[in-house]
């Protein structure tokens, strides 16, 4: 860090004309006699103070810029898992969600306080859902996702591996537990269009999911975990699945659902018609719907900005403390 805080001896030696036949013996001599040119950083108070001031001077502006970007993002978060259960099932949510004969439709109202500029991203957020559990993470077959039935080795997909002797496409727990709540947005009794294309990273779409692979026998088993897929669409176009299968790092995560490509004015009320299909009730997970605009930096996340400002200002503070000490008690 404070690398060149010391002497100029390195320069002194380098600068002198070297009058040997070759550099080799000299370098070797310097090596064996432990005399290599070196600079000796000495962390004197002056350098400490200067370094801190410099870090502070860089970090605080960066922090404010990041924080500003994050503050400009408008984000609406609505939790809907509890509210979307009818009164009579409140005591037994799991039974409700498992009973496929009950219609799962539900309506929520969102009040927008601030103008939201298109594109508005729609996320669903799950809490207490361990997509990073070891058993879950490895329960997939990337080769099968790419090559389909041409690739038969699907032992990693246990226990969602085979159906009637044929490998399930796509196999594995991750695909099996695909999120299947759906959302429709109505503003002033006019349905808003949600663009559900281009919600996955391009590299995933192009290279990890096959264009020729069709989910012909997906969710045909006895136990159905989550969403179903249209067997006529190849996996590379099933972006819901692609997004879902980029497993999240933490047990609380958001995934992109789609984009609303029109502005929403302040004080608009948005009616969300959702089908509450996905079972998070058995393990007490929350489901949330998130509408968010974005900045150059991304969604609403004050962390970076605050961290920058905090580190920067604590540097400045430390440097002032050091300076005071230095003035009071100089060496």
């Amino acid at each position, binding site marked *: 860090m404070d690398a060149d805080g010391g002497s100029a001896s390195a320069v002194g030696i380098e600068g002198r004309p070297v009058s040997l036949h070759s550099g080799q013996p000299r370098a070797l001599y310097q090596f064996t006699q432990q005399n290599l040119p070196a600079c000796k950083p000495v962390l004197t108070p002056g350098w400490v103070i200067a370094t801190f001031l410099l870090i502070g001077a860089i970090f605080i502006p960066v922090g404010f810029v990041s924080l500003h970007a994050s503050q400009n993002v408008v984000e609406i978060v609505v939790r809907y898992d509890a509210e979307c259960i009818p009164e009579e099932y409140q005591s037994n949510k799991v039974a409700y969600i498992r009973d496929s004969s009950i219609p799962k439709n539900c309506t929520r109202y969102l009040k927008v306080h601030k103008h939201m500029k298109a594109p508005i991203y729609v*996320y669903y957020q799950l809490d207490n859902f361990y997509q*990073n559990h070891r058993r879950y993470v490895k329960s997939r077959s990337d080769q099968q996702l790419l090559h389909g039935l041409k690739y038969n080795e699907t032992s990693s997909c246990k226990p969602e591996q085979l159906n009637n002797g044929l490998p399930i496409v796509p196999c594995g727990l991750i695909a099996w537990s695909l999120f299947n709540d759906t959302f429709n947005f109505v503003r002033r009794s006019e349905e808003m269009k949600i663009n559900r294309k281009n919600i996955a990273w391009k590299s995933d779409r192009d290279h990890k999911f096959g264009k020729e692979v069709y989910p012909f026998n997906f969710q045909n088993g006895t136990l159905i975990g989550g969403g179903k897929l249209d067997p006529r669409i190849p996996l590379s176009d099933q972006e819901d699945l692609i997004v879902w299968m980029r497993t999240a790092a*933490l047990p609380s995560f958001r995934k992109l659902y789609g984009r609303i490509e029109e502005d929403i004015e302040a004080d608009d009320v948005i009616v969300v018609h959702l089908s509450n299909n996905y079972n998070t009730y058995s393990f007490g997970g929350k489901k949330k719907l998130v509408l968010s605009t*974005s900045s150059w*930096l*991304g969604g609403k996340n004050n962390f970076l900005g605050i961290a920058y400002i905090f580190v920067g200002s604590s540097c400045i503070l430390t440097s002032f403390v050091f300076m005071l000490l230095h003035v009071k008690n100089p060496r």
Partner: protein
Amino acid sequence: MMNAMNVPSKRSTLERKLDKLILALFGGLFLMCLIGAIASGVFINRKYYYLGLGASVENQFNPSNRFLVATLTMFTLITLYSTIIPISLYVSIEMIKFIQSTQFINKDLHMYHVESNTPALARTSNLNEELGQVEYIFSDKTGTLTRNLMEFFKCSIGGEVYGTGITEIEKGGAERRGIKLEEVHKSSNAVHEKGFNFDDARLMLGAWRNEPDPDACKEFFRCLAICHTVLPEGDESPEKVTYQAASPDEAALVTAAKNFGFFFYRRTPTTIYVRESHVEKMGKVQDVSYEILNVLEFNSTRKRQSVVCRYPDGRLVLYCKGADSVIFERLGDGNGDLKKTTREHLEQFGSAGLRTLCLAYRDLSTDMYEHWNEKFIQAKSSLRDREKKLDEVAELIEKDLVLIGCTAIEDKLQEGVPSCIETLSRAGIKIWVLTGDKMETAINIAYACSLINNDMKQFIISSETDAIREVEDRGDQVEIARFIKDSVTADLKKFLEEAQQYLHTLSGPKLALVIDGKCLMYALDPNLRGMLLNLSLNCTSVVCCRVSPLQKAQVTSLVKKGARKITLSIGDGANDVSMIQAAHVGIGISGLEGMQAVMASDFAIAQFRFLTDLLLVHGRWSYLRICKVVTYFFYKNLTFTLTQFWFTFQTGFSGQRFYDDWFQSLYNVIFTALPVIIVGLFDKDVSESLSKKYPELYKEGIRDSFFKWRVVGIWAFFSFYQSLVFYYFVTSSSSSGQNSSGKMFGLWDVSTMAFTCVVVTVNLRLLMLCNSITRWHYISVAGSILAWFIFIFLYSGVMTPYDRQENVFFVIYVLMSTFYFYLTLLLVPIAALLGDFIFQGVQRWFFPYDYQIIQEIYRHEPDQSSRSELLDIRNDLTPDEARSYAISQLPREKSKHTGFAFDSPGYESFFASQQGVYAPQKAWDVARRASMRSGARTAQKK
């Protein structure tokens, strides 16, 4: 040597402490795994239906057997956290130490001895850093502190002192007393050759004929020329002959005889030929052959050596030379004045630090001799107790001797010994001299080396007291043992009390302990050992004289095991082997006494004074570097593993890995491997000249300042802090959509980000701990970080038919397409290093180490310029010439003090044979020795 004791395999103290650290890490690993395992057993539950925990689930996740889940998860976690154990640490340390010893120690020009063309030699690479922590040095005397070059310096013949030289000790003593001795100019005929440094015209060139007692002179010279076991080699002329002798003293005596005109030039098994000058009259030279009838050899109990010879004219004479005490006992009656003056002269020589021998002769009658010879032959051919019987027979004839005089031989200190010792003691190292010499000479040498001075309070425990002698005369072995033991116990008690009194007073004198071998034998008794140790640790210097090799080893291990201090033994002879092996570090002087010591040693140097460089420069740097390497390894593995550990908490304790397999395995091998080795090789706190200028810096090593548990604790604390920063900063900042596309990161994006931060930070942290940064540091640190990026670019960019790396496919490109990546990469390393930076600043400012103070004093002075300059001068020299030129430019030390001592010839081989350390050589078996020597020499020439 086939008869040597088991060669101990030595490991450095630091490494042993490192083992403890590794054990602690294992403990930590176990604890982490236990926490994770128990929590996993608690966590697992069928309610997480998406985990597919149906009836057929494998045991690892089966919620109906939580104990089994916990047990199996334990094993998973052990493999997951195994990175906490720095396996590559040992390999790296070995590598560093190997280069340190072969390239730095062996090739250091400061430790290259030009005269004997001997560089330093590190025979093991295990103990480099041990050299930086030595607190006690046990030194042999002869050949180590002294040169083992004996020179005939003075003599006393018939009550008259000859030789005008003044020894260094006398000069030093005079200076201390404030008397200025006038410089005696050497007379024109002063002769100085190897073994002879004598200046007195009264004895040279036949001038002795005019002395008061020319007959005594004649006998004196004949005794020197005849009574020995020396073998002449080479041409039979005074200029070209070389003498091969069992001890350098003998050679010096025969050389002296040669210079006085009694040239011993040929030996056959039965005769000795001497070319005598000026005997009949001035200038006449005649060859005389003496028939050697018996040789009564030297050993340490007899302390004398006799030869019975027959003159050409039939006269039978026994010549005897030996220690003053034994000769004086065996003198005939009469001639009291001569005895008295000679004894005075002996004391005078002894106090001048010279090694003395008394010469005597006895005329034998034929009858008496024949009578005795029968007994002698009988004894010689006896099968049992031959040595003892021979001694008894010799006793019969070695009596009623006539005193001729005494010789004084100078034993010079090695170059630079006093200043080296002074430097070492400033460095907080305590030096003990363990020698086979007698007490007076040992004390003399100690004075000459300024180990003892007159301001010190000396504790002397000797067996040579009147009381003990009286008991010994009575001859009852049990009684003697009991008596000596009692007196040693009493002495120890008394001295210990005194020492403790001195310690309580603030400005008390420094203490010195002198103890001889016989007393040491009793003091090393398990009952008294503690007391001895206590007393000697309170003393600044300790001198043990008359000790056997075994006792040398015992004293060494007493301090090593009893006081748990790091010890170093240095010696040159076979009698030092056991001591060299017993100490933590054994140093052999590659000198005149053969190779046994060197073969047993860990490091070999040519001169005692090189110890300064070896300890204060190489040892200190090695210690510093290895400490840094070890603590840094500890830090980087702990930090890395802890991030993994924090992640476990958020994966339901399932043992999911945070990092890709390849990241994890290459972390230690590629991304963080090289810079730490560079630090282990090149880090220097202060330059080599400053290290020697401020020996006090060495004390940091003795105190083990850089590898205390406190230091490890501080590193651990900062690892903890940094790992939290890595994990929480990266995860919390990635929890929202990225860029303006609103897409989300997955597990592998976050982990790659975290790993990038770890690699960058850990490498930068390394630069922060460096005291000197060469371009290799920059290259290796930048190279490591670059290696990571190159690796991840390739690894995540290429899709192979194998399954695994699809996790991280394209991850880095996705990451680098976001602003988040760059902002985090700037923030996290700096936030992580901030704690360390503040700590370092505060530590340096308010609690600086000694070396940091020196660094700041000399901050603006470029060092080492002189040496680089001198190299630039040489334009067209061959490498060899350049090397010797460079060598000649090195600063030379001038020796300030010189000290001397008396060592019985053959004494060391005697003890060695008792100890079984090396094959006993008969003192008179010169021919064999000579052939061995020449063989060794020709071997060297190759």
